[in-house]
């Protein structure tokens, strides 16, 4: 049987442009892609993460080039030719994969380092994977560990406090376009979580009216109510453009929903008062050419990144601290993983037995004062024999056929039963 390995491959905002990412993003949810993944041979456990900034596949599978090929094919689909894969793709194995996952969870690999959305997205992705029984002992442990790493980073460093979300970056920009947000009107296209977050920030900075346009009016009404705003249908967006100043678009629509030709006549009607478009949807909602219009400023997710770079230096210091935590935890996980092999487990078990034996002897022998040297030897021997007798069957079990297949779960359980984790 070939050796097993943890494999992580994907694309992210660092080396893949938005135009490519939006082709790969799974807009249809996790269910179907997870099912497709399960069809790939040689995969034991799998997990999938798709956000606007990254698409990553994490699997525990046999070490086989064919598996890697199949995963790449799955990731890129028909969007790119195999020759182009290398340009964007990153692929990590074992320790490197663990390390990368921890970095992602701790928001150190995020476009906006320190933002907290990624952890929620990762948890959501994991919920899907575990519900569909895609993950097993290895990935379960790994993902749970990544959550706790993220928490540790958050509590032990200040990376979250100066963290700036996408919306924060948007506000920086808005303040360079409009001198203040007082009395500015906001239009949300799409009423998702991101839109909500953006609205909260904008209103917090003085924006006055919030108009929500959504496919389902009900959700729009819900959100609008919270800001004493108004809810409209998606077809009314163009009319609303005459009255608003800041537009945050975050629908899950597969195509562009607002074109340059729609906005151009609006500018005349609003006497060229500036319009600030923020497109946080992937795939993009807004025509990139909007930015060519006078007094129209369009920013998509990647552009917002640049704003965030501005106050990067501060966070870089904290990021170093956070990286150390990640390194540390990745090493610990590596040890755990190594321990899962059968031979080290037997060794650890024997070692523990020997330790217990020695400890008890040291406690008992001083109390038996009248023992001769020969008798003392006999007692020691007996203690040793009890331990090895007791351990004989478990060791045989571990070496048996039933453990070589599906071993991880058993070995993991085995290690917990005998308390081998703590060393």
């Amino acid at each position, binding site marked *: 049987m070939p050796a097993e390995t943890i494999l992580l491959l994907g694309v992210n905002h660092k080396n893949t442009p938005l135009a490519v990412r939006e082709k790969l993003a799974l807009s249809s949810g996790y269910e179907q892609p997870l099912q497709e993944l399960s069809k790939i041979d040689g995969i034991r456990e799998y997990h999938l993460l798709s956000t606007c900034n990254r698409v990553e596949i994490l699997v525990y599978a046999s070490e086989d080039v064919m598996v890697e090929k199949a995963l790449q094919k799955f990731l890129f689909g028909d969007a790119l030719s195999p020759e182009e894969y290398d340009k964007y793709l990153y692929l990590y194995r074992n320790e490197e994969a663990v390390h990368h996952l921890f970095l992602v969870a701790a928001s150190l690999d995020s476009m906006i380092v320190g933002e907290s959305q990624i952890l929620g997205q990762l948890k959501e992705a994991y919920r899907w994977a575990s519900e569909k029984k895609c993950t097993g002992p290895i990935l379960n442990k790994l993902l749970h560990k990544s959550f706790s790493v993220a928490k540790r980073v958050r509590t032990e460093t200040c990376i979250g406090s100066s963290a700036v979300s996408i919306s924060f970056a948007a506000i920086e920009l808005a303040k*360079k376009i409009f*001198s203040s947000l007082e009395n500015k009107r906001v239009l949300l296209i799409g009423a998702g979580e991101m839109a909500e977050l953006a609205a909260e920030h904008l209103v917090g900075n003085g924006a006055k009216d919030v108009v929500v346009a959504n496919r389902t009016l009900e959700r729009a009404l819900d959100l609008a109510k919270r800001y004493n705003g108004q809810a409209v249908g998606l077809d009314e967006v163009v009319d609303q453009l005459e009255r608003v100043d800041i537009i945050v678009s975050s629908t899950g629509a597969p195509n562009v929903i607002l074109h340059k030709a729609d906005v151009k006549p609006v500018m*005349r009607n*609003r006497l060229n008062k*500036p319009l600030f478009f923020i497109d946080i949807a992937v795939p993009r909602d807004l025509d990139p050419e909007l930015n060519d219009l*006078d*007094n129209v400023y369009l920013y998509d997710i990647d*552009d917002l990144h640049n704003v965030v770079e501005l106050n990067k230096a501060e966070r870089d210091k904290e990021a170093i601290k956070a990286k150390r935590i990640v390194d540390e935890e990745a090493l610990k996980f590596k040890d755990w993983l190594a321990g899962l092999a059968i031979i080290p487990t037997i060794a650890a078990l024997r070692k523990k037995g020997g330790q217990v034996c020695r400890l008890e002897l040291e406690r008992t022998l001083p109390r038996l004062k009248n023992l001769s040297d020969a008798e003392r030897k006999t007692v020691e021997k007996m203690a040793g024999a009890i331990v090895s007798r007791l351990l004989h069957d478990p060791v045989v079990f571990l070496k048996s056929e039933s453990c070589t297949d599906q071993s991880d779960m058993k070995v993991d359980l085995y290690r917990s039963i005998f308390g081998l984790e703590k060393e």
Partner: protein
Amino acid sequence: MLSEINYLLFNSVLLVSFVACAVYLVFFFSQKEKLRKVARMIFIASGILQSCYIFSRYLIAGYTPITSQHEAVVFFAWSVTWAYLSFHWRYSVRNFGTFVSVLVFIMLVIAAFASRDFQSLAPALQSMWLPVHAGVSVMAYGFLALAFCGGIMYLLQERELKSKKFGFFFTRLPSLDSLDQLNSHCLAAGFVFLTLGIISGSVWARQAWGTYWHWDPKETWSLITWFLYAAQIHQRFTVGWRGKRAAVMAIVGFCAVLFTLWGVTYLLGGVHSYAR
């Protein structure tokens, strides 16, 4: 004695303006709030010294010193300085001072190269209209120069925002909206003075030459400048010419102002060409 003081005064104006400009530039790079206050104090000092210098020239010459090339430019610099300071009193625009102080310093350097001699006043200019007409016109130029500075700042900032490459200017320059407002306010003030300048000029022309208007090159170019600004203001209120277009127009308008002030005198001549 007085002329020595006068000479010293101009040199100190030049020096103080240079220092103000330098401190403003250092502030622009370092963004230390303390420096801004220092720079502003020095700039105010420069403004006061400029006033003293103009007054001392008035005492020596006995007429409003605005007729020679040197005097006109000094007066121009003075009007820019005080237009800026008066605006600053109302509201402030981030790092505007740096741009204005550079412009003022450049003007004073130009003045330094022009002849500082006193000329006897041509008979046609010996009138109480001289300070009114020339003074009001140059005040207009002062405000229009501010609009010009604002326009340049707008274009720099707008370029960074549109290209999404946030470099040196992004954090240092104010918001587009405040620059556009600055443009509109300076233009409004400048336009009022410009109109008054042309009206006072034509009234004076009626007294001096008998007709209100006789298409002398300077008059023509003033009128062209006036129309440029009038069109701009009209367009802003009717179809919303703002932002980049307004900024470009402020720069074009100011070029017309400079041409009216210097170009006409040297290239086209005409009855207005006293200051040589």
